């Protein structure tokens, strides 16, 4: 199977409702950062989930970093899909590390991530950052 092309979507101040994306095939590391409250979550996230599925067929470990400091509930459905994709990868023997960065000033995020853990069955490293 051929290597996948990396996905890089930088932050755009004109459209702050899209998170930045860095899916790096060689490094085996994916990062979503910023905010996520776009009008059409499926249109944005489905290609990312397709990439992730293709990645999981090719490699045996992944690091997924969430640096989302706001996402709406529609986006949360897509985030759960990412978790489920990673869980399937783990069940097939893949190594999965998930890091979730959250601001000290947003304690509610901890509960939100705990629920993703409970719903997906995956462990998440919660990393508090200043701000």
């Amino acid at each position, binding site marked *: 199977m051929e290597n996948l092309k990396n996905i890089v979507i930088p932050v755009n101040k004109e459209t702050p*409702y899209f998170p930045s994306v860095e899916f790096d095939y060689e490094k085996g590391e994916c990062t979503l950062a910023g905010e996520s*409250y776009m*009008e059409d979550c499926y249109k944005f996230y489905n290609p990312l989930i397709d990439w992730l599925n293709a990645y999981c067929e090719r490699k045996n470990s992944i690091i997924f970093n969430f640096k989302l400091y706001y996402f*709406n*509930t*529609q986006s949360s459905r897509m985030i759960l899909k990412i978790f489920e994709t990673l869980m399937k990868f783990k069940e097939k023997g893949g190594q999965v590390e998930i890091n979730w960065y959250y601001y000290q*000033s947003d304690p509610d995020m901890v*509960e939100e991530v705990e*629920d993703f853990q*409970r719903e997906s069955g995956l462990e998440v490293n919660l990393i508090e950052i200043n701000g």
Partner: protein
Amino acid sequence: MALSINDSSIKLAYKGPFYIDVLSGMAGHLRQMYKLKPITCNRLYKIFFELTQNVAKYSAEMCNLYQHYKYGGIGSFTVEENNNAIRISTTNVIKIEDAPILVKYCNEINSMSVEALREYRSLKRRPQPDPGDSGAYIGIIQIGIITKNKIEWVIEPLSERFSLFTITAKVDIE
């Protein structure tokens, strides 16, 4: 009693199409206003989008002026501060037949504890058997979880076909 725009407790208000860029700009303004109270500010920000994006998507009154926006629901919102709490309200037109569904749903959410709401949110964010499932309700569940307060709502008849739906979320200032 209806709020007047001259009421000093009103911190922010808007009436018109809820295009995403309008909401994004308003939310940025809201964040600036409450930046010295970061926990409250984060809660306001989250609730603001849940409420206003429901209007953008589900208002029975739509503005199709700009075709590049997917949703252009028309409505209004106010952000009001008093008694150590901030209330965000949105108002929009709904079809009269949707009123009892909304009332049932709001009552259901208000009857639940925060823990029960978290369980309910988990259930609602799974793929829904009904492809027409709007996803609007999960936003209201989220409001209950974040504010830990009961939501308030009012439905006023407008005509034989339409009503006016106002929903209010209260965020305690921390």
